[in-house]
């Protein structure tokens, strides 16, 4: 019913939309979402910073307009929900437009169609926006506009920016912004992170709207009405429940809500060695032969032969036991990065199982030299790269001496021994 012309959301939308685009353009590598709709939809969570701020500020302004009036909104025949819907829809819609535009932009950049389940993430964004709108509305009802609007700006910002910075990981998922840590090609979004956002935001919306519906404890006029202590108790309890439920759902989380994806089908090709990549990793072209060639070059000079190379993360295997090597592979990798990742699989396995002892620093130094040498060798053999070995002592030796040192270091490190460094030879 309220006319749209003078709603703050109308004139703040273009400003926030531009800021969100500039932010996304500056801080998001579009290559990271290539072929990966999970990463695309989740990546849009970074712009919740702007959409939620917009929702919170606009709702606070709208709410203050109501609070500053007298004799118009106090004794209405319209239900509370009806009235706040009329008040808040432009704030929610504007913020949703920003968020949807960002999702669409990233999904288009991924060049893949998102799976239907990813709509849950969008629902999470919508509910986060509603929670911030409810928060702004609550502030506008409880405090004069000159305080409510800055409070909305600062408090929403602090919540969005600092839940992700907390050392307590479950708290990261309350605001939804850390969803943008999802995902590498061999990972999927852990939907418990999304459910945290959905449950927390829904309950927080209910809590703030309940508190806002009660006449505030700092009324402009005593005759503005009476407060209902039960509403304070209910509103505050729902907020506590929101926090508890959100933290409970995300209780087992680390810094990023991802799972090693078993549903993304890994297809194995070739024989010497066989290379297993999933659909996302194969997006934009099959480069499994490049992986195979990189590993083959190293096995031909004495490194153990691998039967299979897989890019499945957290696949905890040992080459000596299963004949499998684990590499990393993203669709946006350059050929150099593919060769580097594949050829460093040998040393990566060592670092994953590096023994902890008093000589750890020395072991690690040897590992670094080994990794540098093996990747340099593969890059040279596969792509003709002429990059120099970093370690001067090793570089000064003949190829055969280098090769022997590398193989010896690999074997010794695999056995938890400390190899002699090239400068000591």
């Amino acid at each position, binding site marked *: 019913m*309220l*006319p749209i012309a003078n709603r703050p959301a109308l004139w703040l939308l273009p400003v926030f939309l531009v800021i969100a685009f500039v932010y996304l353009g500056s801080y998001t590598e579009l290559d990271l979402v290539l072929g990966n709709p999970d990463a695309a939809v989740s990546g849009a969570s970074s712009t919740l910073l702007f959409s939620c701020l917009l929702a919170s500020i606009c709702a606070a302004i709208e709410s203050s307009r109501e609070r*500053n009036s007298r*004799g118009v909104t106090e*004794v209405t025949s*319209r*239900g509370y929900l009806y009235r706040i819907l009329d008040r808040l829809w432009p704030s929610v819609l504007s913020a949703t437009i920003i968020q949807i535009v960002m999702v669409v932009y990233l999904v288009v950049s991924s060049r893949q169609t998102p799976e239907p389940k990813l709509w849950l993430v969008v629902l999470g964004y919508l509910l986060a926006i509603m929670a911030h709108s409810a928060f702004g509305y609550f502030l506008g009802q409880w405090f004069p506009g000159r305080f409510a609007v800055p409070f909305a700006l600062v408090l929403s910002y602090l919540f969005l920016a600092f839940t992700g910075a907390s050392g307590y990981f479950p708290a990261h998922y309350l605001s939804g912004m850390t969803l943008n840590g999802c995902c590498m090609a061999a990972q999927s979004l852990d939907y418990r992170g999304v459910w945290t956002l959905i449950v927390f935001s829904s309950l927080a919306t209910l809590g703030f709207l309940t508190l806002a519906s009660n006449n505030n404890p700092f009324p402009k006029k005593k*005759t*503005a009405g*009476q407060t209902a202590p039960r509403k304070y108790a209910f509103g505050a309890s729902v907020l506590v429940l929101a926090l508890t439920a959100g933290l409970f759902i995300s209780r087992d989380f680390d810094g990023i809500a991802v799972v090693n994806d078993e549903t993304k089908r890994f297809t194995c090709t070739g024989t010497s060695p066989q290379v297993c990549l999933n659909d996302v990793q194969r997006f934009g072209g099959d480069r499994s032969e490049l992986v195979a060639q990189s590993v083959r070059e190293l096995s031909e000079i004495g490194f153990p032969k691998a039967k299979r190379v897989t890019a499945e993360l957290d696949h905890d295997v040992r080459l000596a036991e299963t004949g499998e090597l684990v590499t990393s592979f993203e669709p946006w990798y350059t050929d150099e990065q593919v060769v580097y990742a594949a050829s460093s699989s040998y040393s990566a396995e060592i670092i994953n199982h590096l023994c902890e002892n008093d000589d750890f620093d020395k072991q690690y130094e040897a590992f670094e030299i080994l990794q540098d040498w093996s990747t340099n060798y593969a890059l040279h053999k596969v792509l003709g790269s002429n990059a120099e070995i970093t370690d001067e002592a090793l570089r000064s030796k003949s190829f055969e001496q280098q090769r022997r040192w590398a193989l010896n270091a690999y074997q010794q490190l695999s056995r938890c021994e400390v190899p002699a460094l090239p400068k000591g030879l």
Partner: protein
Amino acid sequence: MSTLSIKNLSFSYPKSSPQLDRIDLSYSSGKTAILGPNGAGKTTLISLLATALTPRQGTIQLTTDVLKYSSKELRAFRQQVAWLPQDFSPVAGLSVLEHVTYSAWLKGASRKAAKAAAPIALERVGLSEMSKHKATALSGGQQRRLGIAGALAHDAAVILLDEPTAGLDPNQRDKFQKILNDIDPQKIVLVSTHQTEDIDGTFDSVFVLDQGRQKFHGSTADFMELGGFTEDDPRDRIRTAYGQLVSGEH
């Protein structure tokens, strides 16, 4: 025709003496002046009738329905009642026309009905020419007329006006008097006021409060009779009657 009755109505803020004590009244139409000194309970009575406050005791009844303060009943009751508080303040961000439309909609009128009624209500309060101005930019007197326009736009059966002419200049008061006289005589209009000069000729009945207690409830003619001989100046008679009531002589 609606009937507004209140029975044994009392109100007090927590830990304070009663603002209103066992008030009874009943109206089915016409304009009533609620008189009383500062702190007599006029604003409290109007606020209770507007449902901005809830009584500690007693009932408010509109026609046959006793108000029970459930959300549904409150909404239905409020649809019938318009309220202009003493410190009426419009909603920011709206033009005068939008404000009246919004007020009518909040009181239950459909969008279409509110949009149709708003220009007519503005015409009646003499604000048509300012319909595109910002509501918050109006002067104090104009803002009160805006409030009345909101009340008229949704065709309430009961109109409650709390000190509508307080602080207005004589010109604005004359305009307000004219608006009041033009209101449909079938409606129940309760106006709290300090100004006793305009009672004769405008109001059908008078209700006098003092320290939360009902001192007089009757027709304007009966009220004036308390003030002396009929050949005296009506204004003097009203002042005399009022002075006697609030000082406890009757």
